[in-house]
Every structure is written in C-alpha cells, then in structure tokens.
C-alpha cells in the first residue's frame, strides 16, 4: 500500500509541475505564435529563441509593486486570485494521462484519482473558477473590474449549460461518468468525435467561453474594460490571474482530448508490439500531442477571430449553442434507445 501512496504523491507532483511549466511556456508560445501570425518574430531576446522570456516575465511580476486600491476589500482582494489559481490546478486531478505502468506484479494507473463522477468533478471545479474572477472583480471596487466580473459570471452560466448538455450525450453513449472508462470506451480509433461531431463542436466552443479566451474574452476586453476583472491587480496577484488562464487552457485541452479525441488512445495501439510500460509512455506522449494541438487551436483562434459583442455572445450561447446541444442530446438518446437495446 505504501508504494501506491508514494507513486500517487510522485504523480501529483509531476502533474503539478507539468501543468505549471506548460502554462509558463504557453505564455511564450502564445506570444511567438501571435508574432508569427502577424508576420513578426515574437520575443527572441531572452535566451535562444526567447526560452527565458517566461522566467523574465515571472521575475518582473514578482518585483512589481504590490498595489492594493484603498477602497478594496483586503481579504476578498487576495482571495480572488488565490481561488482562481487553486481551482485551475484542481482540474487535472481526474484526467487519465495514459494507460498503466506495470512494475513487478503491481499496476500503477497514470491517473491521480479515478473518481466515478469524473465529469461532474471537472464541471464543479471549473464552475468554481468563476468565483475567483467574480470575487476579484467585486473586491477591487472598480466599475471596470465589476463589469468584467459580471460579464464573466453571466458568460459562464450561459455556456456551462450548453457544455453540460453536450456532455450528456457522451455520458449516454459511454454509460459512465468515469473519465477512465470514457477513455477506455474510445479504444483505438473509436473516438467520440466521429459519433458526436455536433457535441464536440458545442463543447469546444463552450470550452473557449469557459476559458475566457477570444472570441469570448469579454470579461477581460482590453479595449473596452481595460483588463476587466484584473484592472486593479498588480504584481504576482495579476500574475496568478494571467497564469491561471493558461492552466485552464491546458486542463480544458486535456478534457476535450479525453472526452472527444480518445484521450491517450491512438489508432493501431494494439499492434505496436511494445511492452506494456513503453506503450503507456507512448500513450502519454500521444495524449500530450492532442493537448498541444488544442492549445495551438486556442491560440490560433485567438489571433484570428475578433471579440463578440455582448448581445451577440448571449444570443449565441442561448439561441444557437443550447438548442444544438439539446438536439444533439435528443438525437443521441433516440439512436441509443433504438439500436443499443
């Protein structure tokens, strides 16, 4: 039993470090990609290809003045970014990163906790994320921050609905809310995206909205709300907000890959002829390739599409995404009822 505890602890630490490092370098890659999309080079001064840029940014944020508005609620003001960061890191706990490692006669699944309501857990955690933004925006005592926070809250509520509806179809076809059995159900090339293209699209768009990424970045809206909920934040508290955005991106990419792109599954995985442990590592690599693709997609869309207007955002969420998610759910239910019994 002790070995398992040790393994889980190591896994937790590794996943935590990986999420942080990936989020750190996602900031650099985002700027690089933004540069390349705009025919620029992006940051390339700090170290070769700018690989020390995130370090420089981090150091800069740490040494910035810790500013707090006089009228701000001190406790909530600090709670906001802490909560956002905390919740962003929680999501990765239930994601199955690969198959199982076999050492001796013991098997070690590459997943921190295999809760049987994995999807619900992720939903719960991501919807707490909005509290961090809301509290931060409220505690700043600034109209722009409050506007951003209110927008964020209403956006989350609107898009979580469509997101949940699209997931119900996945849960129906798999018959489980357990993420590891959802992934196991997509063995090989039987990915959910082939059976649920509309659900995938709805989920993807909602995920963009949940992450407050362009074209759904109304809570930040640099041009109209001068940063939105984090207008009044500085130093590492601001850093936490910005950083958690990238961690959220990473976790949602992982969730999208898990639910719709077969997680760590890849075609012809049964015919590789590799040993079980090697196969598990290849699976992890494949999973990270999928995650990287979605993170690239996040950035790609950000530097292509303009921001929605607020009424467009609401109309799109309630009048387009939600009906499509419902139709998808009902059609899936009918098909499931007719052919699987």
């Amino acid at each position, binding site marked *: 039993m002790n070995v398992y505890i040790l393994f889980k602890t190591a896994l937790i630490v590794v996943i935590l470090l990986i999420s942080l490092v990936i989020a750190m370098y996602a900031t650099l890659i985002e700027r690089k990609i933004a*540069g*390349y999309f705009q*025919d*620029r080079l992006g940051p*390339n001064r700090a170290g070769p290809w700018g690989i020390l840029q995130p370090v420089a940014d981090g150091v800069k944020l740490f040494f910035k003045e810790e500013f707090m508005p006089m009228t701000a609620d001190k406790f909530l003001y600090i709670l906001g970014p802490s909560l956002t960061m905390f919740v962003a890191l929680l999501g990765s706990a239930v994601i199955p990163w690969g198959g199982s490692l076999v050492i001796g006669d013991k098997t070690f699944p590459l997943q921190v906790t295999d809760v049987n309501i994995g999807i619900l857990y992720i939903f719960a955690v991501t919807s707490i994320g909005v509290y961090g933004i809301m509290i931060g925006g409220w505690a700043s005592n600034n109209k722009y921050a409050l506007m951003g926070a209110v927008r964020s809250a209403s956006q989350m509520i609107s898009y979580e609905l469509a997101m949940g509806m699209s997931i119900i179809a996945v849960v129906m076809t798999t018959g489980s809310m357990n993420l590891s059995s959802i992934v196991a159900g997509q063995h090989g090339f039987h990915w959910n995206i082939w059976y649920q293209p509309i659900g995938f699209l709805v989920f993807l768009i909602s995920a963009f909205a949940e992450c407050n990424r362009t074209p759904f970045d109304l809570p930040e809206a640099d041009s109209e709300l001068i940063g939105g909920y984090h207008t009044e934040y500085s130093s590492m508290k601001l850093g936490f907000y910005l950083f958690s955005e990238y961690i959220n991106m990473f976790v949602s990419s992982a969730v999208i890959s898990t639910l719709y792109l077969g997680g760590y599954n890849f075609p012809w995985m049964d015919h590789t002829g590799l040993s079980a442990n090697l196969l598990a590592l290849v699976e992890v690599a494949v999973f990270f390739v999928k995650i990287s693709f979605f993170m690239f997609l996040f950035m*790609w869309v950000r*530097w*292509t*599409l303009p921001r929605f207007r607020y009424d467009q955002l609401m109309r799109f969420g309630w009048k387009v995404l939600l009906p499509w998610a419902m139709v998808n759910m009902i059609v899936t239910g009918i098909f499931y009822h007719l052919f699987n019994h």
Partner: protein
Amino acid sequence: MKDQQDFDIRLTTRSKMVSKKRMTFWERMYLPAIVKGMYVTFTHLFRKKTTIEYPEVKRPVSPIYRGMHVLKRDEQGRERCTACGLCALACPAEAITMIAKERLESEKHLYREEKYAAVYEINMLRCIYCGDCEMACPKEAIFLTERFVPSEVSRTDFIYGKDKLLEPIDARIDVSKRQTPEVLAFKKDKTKLHNQ
C-alpha cells in the same frame, strides 16, 4: 465617353458595392467563414517575417541620409574645427554652441588651427538634421553620418559634447558619401553668395 472618364475617381478597382441582402443558411453558419479566416492566419505562419532585428541587422538608409554628426580630424589626427562659429550661425534650429580657445605651443599635435573649440555642443533634440552646418563649415570639420542618435532617458543626455561627437583617432568615420567632389567644388565656388 471622355466625360465619364473625367468623373470616374475610384481609387481602386477592387471596391465592392455594399448590399444588405439576407445571408444564406450557409453564410449564417459562420463556420465556413471562420475556417477560411483561420486558413488565412495559418498561411501567415510560413510567410517571410518583416521584423528587422535592429542592433544586429540595420535597415539600409538612403545615400543622402543625414544622421548623427561627427567632428572630423585630419590625416595626422588633429582636430579640424577652428571654432569659427559659422555652423552655429548657419544652424536654423540654434542647436550648436561652442567656446573657442587659443592653441598653446604644446598642443600643436592636437589641433590643426591656432584656435580650437574647447567646448563644442550640439543639442540633438533641437537639431533638425538639415546639414547646413556641414555646408557652412570652411574647414571640413563637421559632417552628418549614417549613425543614429540612440534614445536616452533624460533631455540633458541629448546635449552631445566633444566626447560623443569627435571622431576617435583609431576608429575613423567615413564621410566620403557626404564629402563628394561636387560638394567640395560647390564650397570653393566664389560666385555663390555664401562663399564671398
């Protein structure tokens, strides 16, 4: 026909009439348009980048570019400037000031003329880089070069003294682009008002 051409003042042939027709179902899906837009940005990933990495790579300047000044020395390394003040007089922006001093016997290897500029200052923020100072100079002492004036954090740092303007003996600055034979002939032309 001729009249029509006269009144046709379109600036481009690519302009399109705006229409308010209802969008088709396909257009209202927006997804094809989004994919098209994303294709456009994706092609930009592989385009040639327009960035010029400044300190390493410098943008080519025009052959008559006028940048930061240099105070020239002669072949023996003596300062050419005699502090006559003609450049300061010619300067339309009144950017140049100088204090003249008489050369001592022991300083003959340092200064070419009997009088030299003990202090020579150009305010780079006032300067308009017109090049009148080099036109006025009778001693071929001041020239504008292709060098840039770097940014500073304080206004007083832009007042360049001899420490920054004077040409180092071991790192001569080429001014042949500015000191062409035509320029020299022009300076010697006594029929021109400025040389009388």
